[in-house]
């Protein structure tokens, strides 16, 4: 590519400067970075809430929080952690990485990605702005009717929670559709499905799961809002409704959700293990099959969250067996990772340390999971601190540790700088150590009968010491989180320059510059193996994409045969405006049903303008003459 062409390419893909450029950008890396920065801010806020709760529980009979405040604290903490952090951050990683790993210049639907972020931000504000005004949902992260119904939750707290879900789920659907289309239709020539890196399989499965799981909860929360706003009777047993319907629909989403969080984490772990063991993944095919199996099985387990509501015994038995079955593919993956490390030449840099922390912690979480999956035992353990311990082991150990590993692993790519290894190890030890110190005692507390969601307990219960230990552990973990963030921030200026491929990794994103330019790659790479950068010192490329307009390559689904050059849309304010209009409709519709009618008009206008055809033919062709 001549310097001339290179310059043109730059200019074509560049964002406009200033506020309009900021609001209108469709650069997947900028959008993903916004997601991640928002998530880090929320992790801090929600972590402070957690510390607040832990201080309250550190001793018996503490009075620093009342019952109402405690209810609000765990509801806000749980909802934020799951709906506003765990799920979106995985989508953000996909938005950032997928095009780079495909050697592509942008996502399949660039404006949809922008829309997804703005709507997600709307969801964040939906929950946290009212909190700042003292109106906080107070029923936990799942709000069952009738408790959340009109007669028991007057006011708008429950509506705020339910509508926050609508926001985040629409955003998640937008992001997932985009990821699926990008992975299936924009792979570089030669990257057949058989040569697709495992990470992309994980993101594909997670996105498909999102598409199938989320409509259930949006429906459930919308029905709840309808019950509360226009007095429908979906969840009123006295009029033939059914409260359990809500629980079924919630958990039909809720169980797959934990895999929607976990499956991308499996992708991170596999990438890291591969790179740092310096060999391709042991058992790539079984790994792919097992992740597909997880994707399917995960939809058949939801009732294990409902063992205590009194469903027929046979049903409980079935779901116990199904829950145990999913341990098989998950276990298989563990063995494949261990075999990869065993047979490779592992280098224990921070990303790999996080993987080891993940394996140790997630195995404990998996074991407590097998315990709670057994219906008779669950009747004893449900709603105790055992469950709190279990859910934090799987969510923090199973999703956040791999995420931290991924963060350290791809940080040089994103910023062009290396993070300090020394401080990375310090953060790792503080977080993993503090976490285990903080949460392991909760298993024991649960077995001793301490219920979850209580704001205090009497001295005669004998839970004081373990709770104090738990609080100290959480504080240490929080300190580690601050070290990790500090390291990331300081390394932005102080870090060593990274170069394109500091870890000697095999996948395409490492062929781009660090940080990647807005168009990612100058030419489309051609792939001949599953680990392209290990195969070729100098990557073969395909030329022919335009340099004077935004063009991407569309290829066939299975064999990635080039099909056509697709015009990729440029920056636009309309996704932002459409998200604004949608947010207005969502917010107003917890106050009046008419908002759905009148609110549809601005949304319609925004969408029409968003999709207004700009093809040259529409100005010069037969259509223009009319």
């Amino acid at each position, binding site marked *: 590519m001549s310097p001339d062409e290179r310059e043109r390419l730059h200019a074509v893909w560049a964002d406009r400067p200033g506020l309009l450029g900021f609001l209108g950008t469709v650069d997947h890396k900028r959008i993903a970075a916004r997601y991640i920065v928002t998530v880090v801010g929320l992790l801090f806020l929600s972590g402070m809430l957690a510390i607040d709760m832990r201080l309250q529980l550190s001793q018996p009979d503490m009075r620093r929080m*009342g*019952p*109402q405040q405690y209810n609000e604290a765990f509801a806000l903490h749980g909802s934020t952690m799951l709906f506003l952090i765990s799920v979106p951050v995985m989508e953000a990683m996909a938005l950032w990485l997928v095009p780079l790993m495909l050697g592509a210049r942008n996502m399949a639907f660039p404006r949809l990605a922008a829309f997804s972020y703005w709507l997600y931000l709307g969801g964040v504000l939906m929950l946290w702005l009212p909190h700042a*005004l*003292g*109106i906080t949902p*107070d029923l936990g992260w799942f709000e069952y009717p*009738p408790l959340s*119904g*009109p*007669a*028991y939750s*007057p*006011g*708008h*707290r429950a509506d705020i929670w339910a509508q926050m879900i609508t926001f985040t789920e629409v955003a998640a659907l937008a992001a997932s559709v985009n990821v699926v289309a990008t992975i299936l239709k924009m792979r570089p020539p030669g990257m057949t499905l058989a040569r697709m890196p495992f990470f992309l399989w994980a993101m594909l499965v997670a996105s498909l799961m999102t598409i199938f799981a989320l409509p259930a909860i949006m429906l459930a929360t919308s029905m709840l809002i309808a*019950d509360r706003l*226009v*007095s429908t*009777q979906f969840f*009123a*047993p*006295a*009029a033939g409704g059914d409260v359990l319907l809500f629980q079924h629909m919630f958990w039909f989403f809720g169980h797959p959700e934990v895999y929607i969080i976990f499956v991308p984490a499996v992708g991170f772990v596999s990438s890291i293990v591969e790179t740092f063991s310096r060999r391709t993944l042991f058992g790539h095919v079984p790994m792919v099959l097992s992740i597909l199996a997880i994707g399917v099985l995960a939809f058949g387990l939801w009732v294990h969250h409902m063992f205590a509501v009194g469903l027929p015994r046979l049903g409980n038995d079935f779901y116990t067996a199904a829950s145990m079955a999913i341990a098989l593919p998950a276990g298989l993956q563990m063995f494949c990772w261990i075999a990869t490390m065993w047979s490779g030449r592992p280098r224990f840099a921070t990303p790999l340390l996080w993987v080891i922390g993940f394996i140790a912690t997630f195995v404990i979480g998996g074991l407590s999971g097998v315990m709670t999956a057994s219906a008779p035992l669950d009747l004893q353990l449900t709603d105790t601190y055992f469950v709190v311990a279990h859910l934090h082991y799987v969510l923090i150990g199973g999703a956040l540790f791999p995420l931290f590993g991924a963060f350290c692993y791809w940080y040089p790519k994103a910023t062009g700088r290396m993070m300090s290894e020394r401080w990375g190890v310090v953060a790792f030890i503080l977080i993993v150590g503090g976490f285990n110190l903080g949460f392991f005692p909760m298993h024991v507390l649960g077995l001793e009968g301490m219920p979850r969601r209580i704001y205090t307990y009497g001295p005669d219960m004998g839970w004081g010491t373990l709770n104090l230990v738990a609080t100290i552990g959480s504080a240490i973990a929080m300190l580690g989180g601050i070290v990790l963030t500090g390291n990331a921030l300081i390394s932005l200026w102080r870090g060593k320059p990274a170069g394109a491929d500091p870890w000697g990794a095999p996948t395409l994103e490492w062929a781009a510059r660090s940080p990647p330019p807005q168009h990612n790659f100058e030419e489309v790479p051609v792939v001949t193996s599953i680990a392209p950068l290990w195969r070729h010192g100098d990557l073969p490329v395909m030329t022919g994409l335009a340099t004077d307009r935004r063009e991407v390559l569309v290829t066939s689904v299975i064999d990635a045969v080039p099909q056509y050059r697709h015009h990729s849309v440029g920056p636009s304010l309309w996704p932002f405006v459409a998200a604004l209009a949608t947010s207005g409709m969502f917010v107003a519709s917890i106050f009046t049903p008419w908002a759905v009618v009148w609110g549809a008009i601005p949304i319609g206008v925004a969408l029409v303008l968003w999709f207004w055809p700009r093809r040259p033919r529409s100005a010069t062709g037969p259509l223009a003459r009319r």
Partner: protein
Amino acid sequence: MNARGAIAGLALIPFLLAGCSREARQLASDQPQTAPSGPADPRTARYAANFYQVSQGGRYFTWYGCGDCHGRLARGAANLANGSRHAVEALYTAIAAGQSGAHSDYAARVPAEQIWQMAAYLHDLSRHEPARNRRNALDQQGEPQGNRWQGPLQ
């Protein structure tokens, strides 16, 4: 344009704050033990138009079977449905002592907090949609219904 946006935002704040006091939810601590001291009683503001207190008031209205004489929407005896015409403390007195002696001993039988809540409920009632009232009643069918209670829902 930004300045105008900011002003519009500022103008919204009083409404938002008013919304907040309606949403406030005080539990257990400082329950009133006494009747209102008069129109200036500061507690009135905490009860009137507060979603939680009004909802609790509606609940006790059903539990104590007030609807048996006054009607579920309080349009029966003494037509209370226009409670907003009466001050909260007047409603309190009416519940606690009764007008015609029908419930002259309620002050001794019903805790003060619950009378406060029922007074707030009646004060607010004219603003409730009947459909919503019915919907709440559906959810509350398993709860006590005065003398007519049949036990919890099966």
